[in-house]
């Protein structure tokens, strides 16, 4: 067991983990943060995407010990005093989710994209979320949602 100290969604944790424990299992099993889900185990689907120290990572490919000393934000940490954050709201407004399983990872990836490129073109959005699989929506409404969120966050029209 290895001791790790980290901040997750604004709360500080100090826990013993096995060195082999993946960050996503630590989040889900030890912290009960099951909003971050697992879709593939090979880092292809992106369902487990979280923010680690300001960058989006696939938490199935990060060991919990690698997050030691870090700051993690999951989908459960986006709450703005009860309101959805702009990307979440845009997903709702644009019917960008169906089963919802890819949604937490997709939203975290989209936030990361918009942080680095606040006014992406459609092609840039498609490239930006290319690490995240969705089987339900055909992506069209996801792309629209990210465009809409970009409008919201930058004040520009979508």
């Amino acid at each position: 067991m290895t001791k790790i100290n980290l901040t997750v969604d604004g709360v500080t944790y100090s826990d013993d983990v096995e060195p082999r424990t993946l960050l996503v299992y630590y989040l889900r099993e030890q912290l009960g943060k099951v909003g971050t889900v697992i879709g593939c185990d090979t880092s292809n689907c992106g369902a487990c995407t979280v923010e680690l120290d300001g960058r989006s990572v696939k938490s199935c490919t990060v060991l919990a010990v690698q997050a030691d000393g870090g700051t993690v934000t999951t989908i459960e940490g986006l709450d703005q005093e009860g309101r959805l954050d702009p990307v979440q709201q845009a997903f709702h407004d644009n019917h960008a989710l169906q089963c919802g399983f890819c949604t937490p990872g997709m939203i975290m990836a989209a936030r990361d994209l918009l942080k680095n490129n606040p006014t992406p073109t459609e092609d840039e959005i498609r490239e930006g979320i290319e690490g995240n699989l969705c089987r339900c929506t055909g992506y069209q409404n996801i792309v629209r949602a990210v465009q809409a969120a970009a409008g919201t966050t930058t004040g520009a029209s979508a």
Partner: protein
Amino acid sequence: MSTRWFGQPIPRVEDERLLRGAGAYLDDLGHDALAAAFVRSPHAHARITDVDVSAALDVEGLVAIYTYDDLPDRLAEPLPLLIPHPTLTHGRTPYALARDKVHHVGAPVAMVVAEDRYLAEDAAERIAVRYEPLPAVVGIAAARAAAHLVHEDVPGNLAARMTQSTGDVDAALAAAPHVLSLDLAIERSASTPLEGRGVLARWDAEARRMRIWSSTQTSTGVRAAVAAKLDLPLVDVDVITPDVGGGFGVKIMHPWPEEVLVPWAARLLARPVKFVEDRREHFVASAHERGQLHSVRVGFDDDGRLLGLDVRFWHDHGAFIPYGLIVPIITSTQLLGPYKPGAYRVTFDSLYTNTVIVTPYRGAGRPQGVFVMERVMDAIARELGLDRTTVRERNFIEPHEMPYDHGLVFQDGRPLIYDSGDFPASLAKLKQLVGWDDFEQARETARAEGRRIGIGLACYVEGTGVGPYEGGHVVIETSGKVKVATGLTSQGQGHQTVFAQIVADELGVPLDDVEVVTGDTRRFGYAVGTFASRAAVMSGSAIALAARAAKEKALRVAGDALEANPDDLEIVDGVVRVVGAPGAEISLGTVAVLSNPLRYAFDTAAQAATQFASGDPAKPPVPEDDEPGLEGRDYFSPMQSTFANGMHAVVVETDPDTAEVKILRYCVVHDCGTLINPRIVEGQIHGGVAQGVAGALYERMAYDDAGQLQNASFMDFLMPYASEVPSSVEIDHLETPSPMNPLGIKGAGEAGVIPGAAAIASAIEDAEGIVLTSMPISPSELWELRRSKETG
């Protein structure tokens, strides 16, 4: 009048929890449960000579290991053959854990239960299974050749041979001025939801009740199967479907081995047990679909009208056939699409191979059938030098010919009778939408720029809303809130939203007051499941009928209270009022109070229903033929399916050097009857189209000759990302109401995927001047086709 919700493209009520990561998928439950992991066969076909668990026994946290020999009673019998058919003469289903033999890579051999999944897998990898490999039968050619058998007692690897026909095909072909033969192939693909299968079971030893959560498309099916396998009374088994991360067909298959083994272990160990499939397991231990070979002869006249169609095909159903012949039966009937075939004969063989089982995946046999029929249409157009839309138009069933009886039996055992549809109008809309008649100009412009573009189309008819039935329950609580339940399940379709729309309109209550529960046998015990684009048709109709029953009672009770004729009452925003008499009104919540004669008041409002406060002393408190409470329960069971239809057109560009195919435009004309929520229907089409594109250009199951699936991960199975799908699906709806149900609706869930491979093949052919006979097609395959064309 308050807002009418039916037909409104409102956002979904499901979204809030899912957007916050507050959904509850299977693996989000059962934090206290033991974890199950499985030892699975690495061989496609082998005899098991020994299972040695000794090395696993000292793994810390191990709780139990089970093999076939541990299974008692009915659990030791083969899993059920869910849908028998007279022609399914050699139906074989697997054991929950392999007995003596394994028949495909991924077959479960031993179950390990441990304190967590890491430890369960640690133990599983220490279990030594000795195999004696047997020759593997992989692919339709090997199955047909039958040099080796998947099951020793199934000659020719043949589970079933089935023929349907109408008219004299041999005579029609002999007399036809033109006859063409086509050999066509469609590869395997799979549903591949983002969430795999999973099951959690809790045995309550004190109450002697089993509670199961399963990521399934049929909670009632799982319930009945587990009760039977574990010899439990049905009333003591609850099956609850939590949020489900996609299904697309694979989760209608049940019971999976894990679905009976996990509850059994939970009872044996008196501890909750959970199994969650990982991605590799989903590829090798769930189900695939699609793989078929077709050999077609078609006879037609000088105008391109079909005179006779003779279809022979071979369906690879994998190592077992638990779901029966549904997929090939659908192929063999829905192949006909919107066309009159003249004389028709179809014969299929359903064949065993040493691969994962084949059960319905969105579209369920239709993409194959449509691919075949639309290839035939394109071949006729090419042969006669006619426009491809002209050939189709000439073969359409006309609106005045509806209902149209094909003289065949559909997948539900009912006659194949199209109830409605206007195919010429759909095609006219599609041509307009895609600009079919102006395409030659676009082609010339592109050609001048050194670019190759092509246009294609494909048409389909889809039998939706198959029986036998679904039910709905609507209860108006004393709070005025309306609680709705139906037994079929949800995997992201937005049922909570659309069913609430239906109920809000039927009852005259605010949408926010309606709450819908699906797939929970505690709330509704009679149901079939979510498949065959049936949820809106079946449960939507049943819920509408249930709401009408509740409304009828509400008006009756309110009429007594208001001393008014129920015919003079209306319900607006949850208040029953006398039409034209302002102030004469009573809230639905109060009506609910009055509907239930009480001895004991539980709050102030309830005092109105107690024995000294209400009731006619001349009548019993609950009249004969009535019951307490403000509820409606009803069922919908139509005579047959209702047939939706659609047509897709696609414009592609093929790279002259790399042979890469880019979709420039994707147009859909879709008729699913009246729309409950256009936003949700369009979302279904978007997702279906993406799966159609995937099946046309990217996805296949790459089995090698030994039966090893070479691409059993998202690294190698090319499920499209946002960068591979059309940037915009252009949709136009035609609404031909179904006469088969009270709401005029037809199913919409599967439609988008069905004509994808056919339309894209047509477009690539048009761009390249090369005949395509199999899908999917990769750039390298297209490049090879070009080369063989050039070299003659």
